[in-house]
């Protein structure tokens, strides 16, 4: 009996390494964490990515600019529309094409609807990570009407491919404006339920408050953008500081917190849903008349040079870099994906905390794995 105690003491002392993933329900995809533990305390986390690597950047080198767009859907599938928009804006800016106001308005509305849908899915999955299964049904209930709006106008629920260089693939459906207006009224009533169900909940408070601190310096040096970075006070909203599309015509608040713990990353996303609603509300009544697409040449050739375009995706700054040699194919494409940078901070965030907190921390970063591996 005494021997047994001696062995267990030895286990307590030495470093112990376990794998979390690639198939783990709280990593939301095929991501593998190599976690070093001492007892229950995390010493370090080493993320191993590449399980869903498809070589999208390389594939883009053999596709025309119109064809590249449908691959950007497959990066961060929850902000598919925003990723499409990044490539389209890059091509339009490189060729110096001014798209009609109507296109800008519709793009902005669809982007914000994507953001709402993405944050709702994050909210319900975050609750589920921490053991609150109920939230899953509430989040998906409110996400369904948005997917219906997408399906009616773009023809697809998730991977829309609705943008094309010079505008949109199709005009908005006649029901679009009515449906979006109805949805805003509906969701303004339902959003306070999110706070009642989860935000004030004592279990969530205990498990997220004062856990996984990210300072402003670390957020900047690791490049943590999006709501995760803004919870640490990093003013990085591309929509606010470098407005594109119709974001310069709307009033909205950049959500900033100073504390930078898991709970404030949660809070930043919930607050952002209110701001998204505000943006849609300001635009939906004023969609100008006009064409939905500018006539482009069938073969788009970008002038020789380097181009970079960034947009604010649901999880942070999404950037597209294109090196063109004047051919109809890009010579090199690089995607700056927000999730990869956000993931890099996970070792810093979770060291010294318990292993159960690692789930809360990785959930609060809102990782989408296909965006990390590309």
């Amino acid at each position, binding site marked *: 009996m005494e021997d047994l105690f001696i062995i267990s003491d030895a286990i307590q002392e030495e470093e112990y390494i376990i794998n979390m993933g690639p198939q783990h329900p709280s990593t939301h995809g095929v991501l593998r964490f190599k976690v070093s533990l001492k007892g229950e305390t995390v010493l370090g986390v080493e993320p191993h990515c590449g399980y869903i690597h498809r070589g999208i950047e390389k594939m883009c080198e053999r596709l025309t600019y119109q064809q590249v767009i*449908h691959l950007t859907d497959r990066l961060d599938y929850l902000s598919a529309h925003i990723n499409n928009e990044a490539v389209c804006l890059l091509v339009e800016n490189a060729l110096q094409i001014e798209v009609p106001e109507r296109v800008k308005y519709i793009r902005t509305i669809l982007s914000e609807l994507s953001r709402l849908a993405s944050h709702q899915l994050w909210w319900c999955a975050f609750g589920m990570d921490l053991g609150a299964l109920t939230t899953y049904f509430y989040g998906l209930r409110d996400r369904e009407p948005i997917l219906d709006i997408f399906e009616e106008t773009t023809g697809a629920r998730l991977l829309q491919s609705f943008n094309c260089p010079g505008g949109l693939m199709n005009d908005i459906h006649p029901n679009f404006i009515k449906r979006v207006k109805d949805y805003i009224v509906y969701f303004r009533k339902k959003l306070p339920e999110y706070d*009642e169900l989860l935000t*004030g909940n004592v279990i969530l408070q205990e498990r997220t408050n004062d856990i996984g601190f990210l300072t402003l310096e670390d957020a900047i040096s690791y490049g943590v953008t999006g709501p995760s970075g803004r919870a640490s006070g990093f003013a990085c909203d591309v929509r606010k500081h470098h407005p594109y599309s119709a974001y310069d015509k709307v009033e909205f608040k950049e959500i900033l917190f100073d504390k930078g713990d898991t709970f404030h990353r949660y809070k930043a996303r919930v607050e952002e849903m209110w701001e998204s609603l505000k943006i849609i509300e300001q635009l939906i009544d004023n969609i100008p008349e006009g064409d939905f697409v500018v006539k482009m040449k069938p073969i788009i050739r970008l002038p020789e040079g380097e181009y970079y375009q960034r947009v604010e995706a649901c999880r942070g700054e999404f950037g597209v870099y294109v090196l063109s040699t004047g051919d109809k194919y890009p010579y090199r494409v690089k995607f700056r994906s927000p999730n990869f940078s956000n993931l890099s901070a996970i070792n810093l965030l979770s060291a010294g905390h318990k292993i159960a907190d690692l789930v809360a921390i990785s959930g609060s970063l809102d990782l989408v794995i296909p965006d990390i591996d590309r």
Partner: protein
Amino acid sequence: MNSIITYLKELFGGIKTLLKGMMVTGYYFVHPRSIITQQYPENRKTLQMFDRFKGQVSMPHDENNLHKCTACNICEINCPNGSIEVISKQVEKADGKTKKELDTYIYKLSMCTFCGLCIKVCPQDAIVFTPEFEHAVFNQDKLIKTLNKPGSSLKEKVKEPINII
């Protein structure tokens, strides 16, 4: 004594937040009218998909079994995945001229990513998206489809395609 008061405060404060959450779930327990679930396999007969839903690519034929495809290959060139293959044949007309006509239009559903480029670039509007979505089959070969119906031919008075590529 102080620690007991703090403990009790935290305990009852925690219970209060839990009850607040239970109020929301309790409200929906007694108000079951706001159900959004579709009973899918049961409602198959009445299920209406949206018109623009990108289910699969298909080629509409009119009542005389005529389609609009001139076998110009623009869709095949624009497809990013190689899921379309247009096989054409040379047909001798009554006046002695030979003309290119569509032989088989092969569409590989398993490779399609539903980007919609083929439909956007088609100069004749010969192909459209139809909202069928039940694509599950037991054999992968069944996902390779021939879109033009057997015995179909080109609808006359279709203007020649503008050669843009």
